[in-house]
């Protein structure tokens, strides 16, 4: 389900870009805000679509919880939970068209879900049966970048390719607040601005880079950085799925129209640990977690749906069923995953033959065969 069909009038870009954020369309208590011009960018989102967005967020949260459980049970080596960032990921990814391309970091399971990737496939890298899971060309989604910020440059290069092709699509580069300190993100902003390429820099500022608070990365807002590159930068409430959708639509529309990159800072919160190896109690307070818990993106959207009579018991049940089925399918699929055979170690290092690697593979497989004979 892509909900990117709204025509965004070019002549109003400047007006929207000039809006002094943060953009918020749904208040923390689930009410529609008044007066924000970004409302027009989601004017077409009806009750049916709001429910779809909620369902996506709920399913993604359930998948995330199941992956956490699988890790705790020893079935995954590691997991980086997205808990709390569902609105930022679903709201932005649902703005994309199929021919747009996305580059992500390792926490964007919600983005991968919206691009159509089977969650079982997403977990291959976390279970260790492969370094990644899917074919980037099939979903127009690169596999996760683990080196922080590196993907911002890949996104910029891909967008430069779109420009050279005279095509009309765009790229989204997802990264976090920690990544904004990386040189690659700065270089990507510079290159993208210099070449006016169709890329959206989507920063999920989730307040924490493992144990480092965002104030260690920056003393001004991340959105403000855009100004130095001559780009529009906008801060949105990242726990408000409509605000995220609106801002991403605007940025994409600018990109399609040849007006170049936009930096979006989605202010959100990593409600869980950095990964399953992390312990947030060592560096942040319970009070802070409670404060952000009150801004939970799913709670907020559910409140809006209830307020507007869109979330009856039947809908709630339907969502719970969808989430439960996704979790069961994930668990079943992960437990059934085959381990790779030793020859896979040597595959796909090079496109063509490579005498050193070929010799090492042959020698090792021969060694294994001898060992098998002995044992």
């Amino acid at each position: 389900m892509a909900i990117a069909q709204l025509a965004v009038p070019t002549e109003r870009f400047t007006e929207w870009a000039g809006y002094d954020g943060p953009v918020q369309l749904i208040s923390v208590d689930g009410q529609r805000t008044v007066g924000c011009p970004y409302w027009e960018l989601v004017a077409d989102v009806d009750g049916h679509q709001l429910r779809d967005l909620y369902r996506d967020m709920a399913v993604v949260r359930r998948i995330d919880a199941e992956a956490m459980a699988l890790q705790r049970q020893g079935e995954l080596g590691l997991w980086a939970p997205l808990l709390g960032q569902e609105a930022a990921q679903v709201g932005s990814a649902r703005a994309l068209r199929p021919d747009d391309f996305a580059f992500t970091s390792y926490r964007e399971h919600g983005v991968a879900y919206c691009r159509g990737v089977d969650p079982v496939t997403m977990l291959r890298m976390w279970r260790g049966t492969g370094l990644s899971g899917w074919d980037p060309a099939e979903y127009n989604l690169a596999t996760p970048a683990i080196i922080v910020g590196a993907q911002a440059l890949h996104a910029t290069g891909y967008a430069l390719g779109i420009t050279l092709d005279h095509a009309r699509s765009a790229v989204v580069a997802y990264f976090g607040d920690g990544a904004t300190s990386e040189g690659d993100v700065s270089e990507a902003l510079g290159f993208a601005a210099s070449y006016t390429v169709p890329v959206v820099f989507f920063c999920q500022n989730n307040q924490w880079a493992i144990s480092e608070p965002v104030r260690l990365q920056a003393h001004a807002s991340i959105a403000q950085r855009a100004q130095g590159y001559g780009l529009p930068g906008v801060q949105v409430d990242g726990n408000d799925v409509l605000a995220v959708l609106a801002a991403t639509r605007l940025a994409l529309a600018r990109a399609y129209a040849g007006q170049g990159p936009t930096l979006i800072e989605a202010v959100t919160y990593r409600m869980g640990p950095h990964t399953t190896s992390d312990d947030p109690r060592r560096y942040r307070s319970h009070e802070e977690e409670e404060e952000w818990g009150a801004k939970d993106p799913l709670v907020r959207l559910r409140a809006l749906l209830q307020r507007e009579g869109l979330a009856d018991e039947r809908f709630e049940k339907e969502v719970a069923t969808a989430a439960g089925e996704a979790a069961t399918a994930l668990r079943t699929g992960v437990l059934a995953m085959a381990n790779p055979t030793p020859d896979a170690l040597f595959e796909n290092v090079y496109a063509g033959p490579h005498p050193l690697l070929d010799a090492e593979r042959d020698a090792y497989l021969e060694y294994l065969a001898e060992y098998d004979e002995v044992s």
Partner: protein
Amino acid sequence: MAVATTNTTNPTTTATTTTTEPTSQRATTMTLGKALNAGLRQALTDDDKVILMGEDIGKLGGVFRVTEGLQDEFGDRRVIDTPLAESGVVGTAVGLALRGYRPVCEIQFDGFVYPAFDQIVSQVAKFRYRNEGRVAVPVTIRIPYGGGIGAVEHHSESPEAYFAHTAGLRVVTPSNAADGHRMIQQAIASDDPVIFFEPKRRYWEKGDVDTDAPLDDMPLHRARVLTEGTDVTVAAYGPMVATSLEAAGIGAEEGISLEVVDLRSLSPIDFETLETSVHKTGRLVVVHEAPVFCGLGAEIAARVSERCFYSLESPVRRVGGFATPYPAAKLERHFLPDADRILHEVDRCLQP
């Protein structure tokens, strides 16, 4: 694989020229720099997905003029000046490759490649493996390298071992104009990423180039025996090939017969050609500008010792830079191997 000794083009051992290609009636004489330029032009002509990117490569034609005239000819959408950020150059090349392009990046000087090291080692080299062969990253990264031009700091380094050590990369280096012309086209055509080291002090040395010769006459990763000899094999690459040929010339006058092998490819290394030579001569000296410690020579010495042990009549010896940073220009003649230092190691090999 054919033994390359049959390709020997200079039957005398008094080799003092770097012209190493068979001369053909169609061959024209040009410098290495011009040959690379012609090779790049051919690659741009043959495949419209080939694009060049780098700092100052457009109007200026690169600080060594290797891309001279190419932006005029192919436009600024195919020959692209980039902002000054090496990681940015290589990282955006990755994205372009994913979009179906075949980018050729120029790193202005050897010592400037390190800001791009992460993108090369973590991204370019591993993308195919990480994506289980579903994604190709056919990026060529051209790096002028080596010393001998009296440059300031960071302009004379030989960082090839870092890249040869990295799985997923191919690493090659031409030593002469004909190889420059051919190998740059082969590198660009490769579906694997290639680190293409250009011996900058040889940019102005001339050789015969047959621009119509079929590329597959000589595979990208094959070593070439340049002078046949019987006493000691000298394996060199890039800028040290000419120096080794000079040593062979002096050696011949002194009655020492050296067989000079131009490795051409550093990953993979053509050990077959090298071993054939060592089995014949029984002695090997490896020469490079890079520091000897953990240099390519170490790997070559280890492999040749393993595989030619019963043919060797002396330990494999290495000639190269010292375990120092690259020194100031007025000291570089002490750092860089010359013909005398090569012959000194040759003599040690020959001592009973």
